[in-house]
């Protein structure tokens, strides 16, 4: 095992996959000598050259389009949206072309592309650079959606995403980039579609993903001191969801809260909650709680920005409420 950052983990995955398969290439704004908006691709242009680490003009729509076309032709593009918010400019190619191509053509071609999406708030970047749009992507059949919470997952999921024959929307949380974690020295891949139990517990289940998992872990440590044992499920893949892992945990605890930074309305919490009431209703001892972002655009002011998304204290308070039911 070695200790590396989330950013380095992503870079290792990209580099190893590019060595393994010459059809893998990277494309995006300033991913070359500049190293990408958040430094993930730093040094890769020196290693692989400008043929495979390709800087583009600011033209999101056609980057997504070109990637789709290249993917159906046998290449394996990994494209970077400098901020996930700019996916709005890529949406036609992602939603109407990439997501549906395999289906509409009855599998005459597939679309093995990865779209890297730096997401989330906490950096003071304001309303157009801080959103969590993962639920949009889950709403489009044909896309797979992943969101690693730590370096180990970042590397293993990136490898799986690149090897997958479908378009994979790969969310990365900006606050996670410099976080450190253990990663095996040897090659490994984390299959898409498998959640992970990050922490075992038997009083309540916390279902979360991305950076919010870290907040759940801290909250769970505090809750332990007052005798509340929380089980934390890190979804890792948001579509397709690992329903079995969630349901099995809820069967054990009977109490569940879903924690995410994305706004509550139309968020993944609602979907998971519905799945549980369809498939695990009789095991529930209390109503399901959603601890999610407020239904507001992300404000610039630091105090307000923090007030908009679940913080550790909010998670703890919710857990205590859940125990009282």
């Amino acid at each position, binding site marked *: 095992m070695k200790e590396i950052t989330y950013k380095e983990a992503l870079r290792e995955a990209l580099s190893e996959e590019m060595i393994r398969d010459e059809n893998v290439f990277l494309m995006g*704004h*300033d991913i*070359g*000598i*500049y190293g990408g908006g958040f430094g993930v691709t730093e040094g890769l242009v020196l290693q692989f050259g400008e043929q495979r680490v390709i*800087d583009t*003009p*600011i*033209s*999101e*729509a*056609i980057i997504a389009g070109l990637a789709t076309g290249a993917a159906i032709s046998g290449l394996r593009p990994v494209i970077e949206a400098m901020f996930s*918010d*700019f996916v709005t*400019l890529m949406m036609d190619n992602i939603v109407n072309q990439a997501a549906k191509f395999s289906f509409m053509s009855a599998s005459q071609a597939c679309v093995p592309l990865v779209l890297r999406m730096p997401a989330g708030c906490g*950096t*003071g*970047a*304001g*309303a*157009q*650079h801080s959103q969590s749009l993962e639920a949009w992507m889950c709403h489009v059949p044909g896309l797979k959606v992943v969101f690693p919470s730590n370096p180990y997952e970042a590397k293993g999921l990136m490898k799986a995403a690149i090897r997958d024959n479908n378009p994979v929307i790969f969310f990365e949380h900006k606050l996670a980039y410099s976080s450190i974690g253990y990663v095996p020295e040897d090659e490994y891949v984390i299959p898409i579609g498998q959640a992970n139990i990050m922490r075992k517990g038997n009083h309540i289940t916390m279902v979360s993903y991305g950076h919010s998992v870290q907040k759940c872990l801290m909250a769970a440590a505090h809750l332990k001191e007052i005798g509340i044992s929380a089980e934390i499920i890190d979804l890792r893949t948001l579509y397709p969801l690992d329903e079995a892992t969630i349901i099995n945990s809820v069967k054990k605890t009977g109490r569940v809260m879903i924690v995410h930074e994305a706004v509550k309305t139309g968020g993944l919490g609602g979907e998971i909650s519905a799945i549980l009431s369809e498939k695990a209703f009789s095991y529930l001892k209390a109503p399901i709680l959603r601890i999610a972002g*407020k*239904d*507001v*655009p992300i*404000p*610039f*002011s*630091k*105090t*307000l920005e923090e*007030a*908009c998304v679940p913080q550790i204290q909010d998670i703890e308070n919710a857990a205590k409420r859940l125990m009282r039911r």
Partner: protein
Amino acid sequence: MSLTNEKITIMYNKMVTARLLEEMLHEMFSEHMLHGTTHLGIGQEASGIGACMTLRDGDKATLTHRNHVQCIGLGMNVKYLLAEMFGKETGTNSGLGGSMHLMDLKNGNLGANGIVGGGLGLALGAAFKMHYHKEENVVMCFLGDGATNEGLFHEALNLASIKNLPVVFFVENNHYAVSMNTSRSMKVTDIGQRANAYGIRSIILDGNDAIDVYNMTFSAVQYVREGNGPILIESKTYRVAGHSKSDVKQLYRSQEEVDAWVAKDPIKRLEEYILKNNIANSEMLKEINTRVMDEIREAVLFAQNSLDPSADILNKHIYAK
């Protein structure tokens, strides 16, 4: 209106305000006094301010992420600008916007934009309203060179052209979009050529020469105001500061290149012009600098002493009443 001595002095004042303000911002970011990020327009003062000064009451402008110079040009008070950068309730946007969203509608400022090219639609719409009501106003749509590679730019030029909309596309070609030099991002040497493809006239000017920027933009604005449809101005200039607060290494350009442009500093050039033409003497210029610096220091105090917005503001502005 021709450039009177009084106007030249105002222009100088505004350029100095923008420069000293941004140097202060740079310092405050280095000391982690400010949250978020910022994009400085140091070196582009003649371009942004010269252009804004050609506008009159009722005209509007859409700004870019690199907007402080443009904001000052349009008359934003530095107190409220700084308060917004500090995320305070007294800021132009009550602390909700931040550096990339500074907006000041009463001065015709339709807002800076965090989305490259995000102002294009807003500019066309505002111009459409002027056209619809037969108002003799124009919209100045500020863009960077990088924004002209977005698909929306090309749609906007074509639509503005066929509908004869009163838009001045003011492209500040500072030769870079983050790390990408224009020689790598486009094969045309002049962005003006792109306008010609849509039947729009274009003007290319020296964006570091305030007098030139003002005079040439003024006649362009006049042309648009008279109902001749849109025009595109390419203002050739240079971003002396890094792209944003995070752009520290700047491996994509050489120090010699930066130095060569620093030698063409727009403020120094205007000072020389002012002195040569006896518009003011060096004592008077020094005085302006001192007064501006005092104003900025006062504005910083104002911002620091203002309150954070309270949480109930969050739900107040999402929907109109």
